[in-house]
């Protein structure tokens, strides 16, 4: 693994940690959903970089599925919030 890939993975992991802090602290449920959406986007980026590091093309399919799951999860959470789930906790 070249140093560039290591730097990218380290920085993305640090970003995951920051998003995790917001996920734990976030004052309301929509804040947590936004943190989760950022989480899934960053995981897609990590999978892309791991695909370069492992020289494995098939990992890109995993990235596509991950992006799809993040979108569906956000839509589901938004409907849950809007249909009178817990607004503040």
């Amino acid at each position, binding site marked *: 693994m070249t140093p560039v890939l290591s730097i990218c993975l380290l920085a993305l992991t640090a970003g995951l940690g920051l998003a995790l802090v917001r996920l734990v602290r976030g004052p309301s449920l929509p804040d947590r959903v936004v943190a989760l959406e950022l989480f899934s986007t960053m995981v897609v980026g990590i999978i892309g970089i791991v695909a370069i590091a492992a020289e494995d093309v098939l990992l890109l399919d995993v990235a*596509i599925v991950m992006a799809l799951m993040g*979108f569906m999860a956000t839509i589901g959470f938004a409907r849950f919030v809007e249909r009178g789930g817990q607004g503040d906790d």
Partner: protein
Amino acid sequence: MIELLEASLLLTGTAFMLVAALGVIRLPDLLTRMHATTKAATLGITLIMLGVALHFGQATVVARALGVVIFVMLTAPVAAHVIGRAGYFVGTRLWSGTLKDELRPHYDPLTHRLHSGLEEDEEGGRRPRGDG
């Protein structure tokens, strides 16, 4: 040359993702946080996927990487709109320094109705619309 371009694409994309994470932890309320995550993260994922496409250089990989990019670019605004709307409707507090909230005078949170100012009034007649 290709390696240099690829490395710069990956590093720039990672920097944008890190900026998005910093924004989501530093910015004060829901809408500003969404402003950070949607735009910066979408640009970051675009640059990273362009780097991946440049690294492999086969047609199938380029198609898949562009598929990820187009999918994220199509779905990120939709997801941001839906969650922002839900957050506003359940009454998430805006930042104390917010200057303008144009939705507040038109939206009734109890009846969940949005007034445009052109509705029919109580008697059922239409208000003059300025055509004489």
